[in-house]
């Protein structure tokens, strides 16, 4: 009975981290597709968001074999910092923060909207979805499996 319970918890926990890995992988390949295939040059803020999502794809993978509960400790800070950059970028896009305050050079403006999927989904928005999804899953994981 106890053994069964341990088994299911570990399965759920593994599933949570696996989903985190899926999100990170989607972000990794998605961003590479935007820059390398579609030729949208990443601006400075895009690079900062990449810096914090790329290692997550590796860290989650390592944490999956065998399931390491402390993976939360190492990945959550990265995801939170990344989310900060994503929100900042999104606010630039929407014009909430004026463009003159942003750190990019004129040629590669961070506020210039390059892509809108279905008319409203922008790249910083995707980034916010990815980071907050990962953070939410990690918080659930921590609450349930990390005493």
């Amino acid at each position, binding site marked *: 009975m106890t053994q069964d319970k341990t088994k299911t918890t570990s399965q759920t926990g*593994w599933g949570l981290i*696996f989903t985190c890995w899926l999100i990170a*992988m*989607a972000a990794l*390949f998605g961003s590479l*597709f935007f820059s390398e*295939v*579609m*030729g949208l040059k990443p601006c400075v803020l895009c690079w900062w968001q990449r810096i914090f999502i790329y290692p997550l794809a590796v860290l989650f*993978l390592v944490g999956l074999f065998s399931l390491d509960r402390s993976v939360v400790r190492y990945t959550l800070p990265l995801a939170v910092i990344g989310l900060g950059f994503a929100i900042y970028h999104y606010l630039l896009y929407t014009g909430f923060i004026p463009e003159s305050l942003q750190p990019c050079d004129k040629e590669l403006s961070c506020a210039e909207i390059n892509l809108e999927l279905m008319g409203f989904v922008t790249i910083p928005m995707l980034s916010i979805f990815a980071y907050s999804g990962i953070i939410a899953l990690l918080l659930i994981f921590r609450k349930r499996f990390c005493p």
Partner: protein
Amino acid sequence: MKRNMIVTATAILFIVLFFLATAIYKKQSQSEQENASSINPEYIQRDYSPTTGPADAKVTIVEFFDPACGTCSAFYPFVKKLMKDNPGKVKLVLRYLPLHQNSGVVVQYFEAARLQGLFWQTLERAYQTRDAWIDHHVVRPEKFWLQLDGLGLDMEKLNKDVQSAEIIRRVKQDIQDAQQLNVNKTPGFFVNGKPLVYFGAQQLQQLVESEIAANY
């Protein structure tokens, strides 16, 4: 073990999806590019552009180039060789797409040199001396100017012509046409109006050869 498989399969799936999406995207942008040029073939070729090779050649390579672009410089001898290997069949039309900072000024110098009949010499000199007038991807027109010794250019006339309205208009037109054609990297090649979708020397050679086979 099962988890092992799930993760491996997912990773492979991601990679496959990426390449599949790449292939679909390239195909799509190719047809878009072809549509743009079928709407208006002028986007690809204007009558004012510098041209070399036999006038009656049935294969025309159009190259959008940036003098500060290292790949353009590396491709130049290759394109020349393609023309030499197929004597009388291939001509080259150059169009400007100065993407580097200040590169537009160098391009205007080319046009000014063209008025003195020294376009190709100036272009070749620019490619040979690239390192001397580009600092960290930024073009230094004043340093470029120093490289023009010994070409036989009338420098006074050159400096005057550089600012001519017609030259500025042509460069602007080239850049606009490149945008219409979705050419956003240099060199951007078209052979008889067909875009080179997968970039590479071998791919360019194949495209040129297939056009030669179709027209001769």
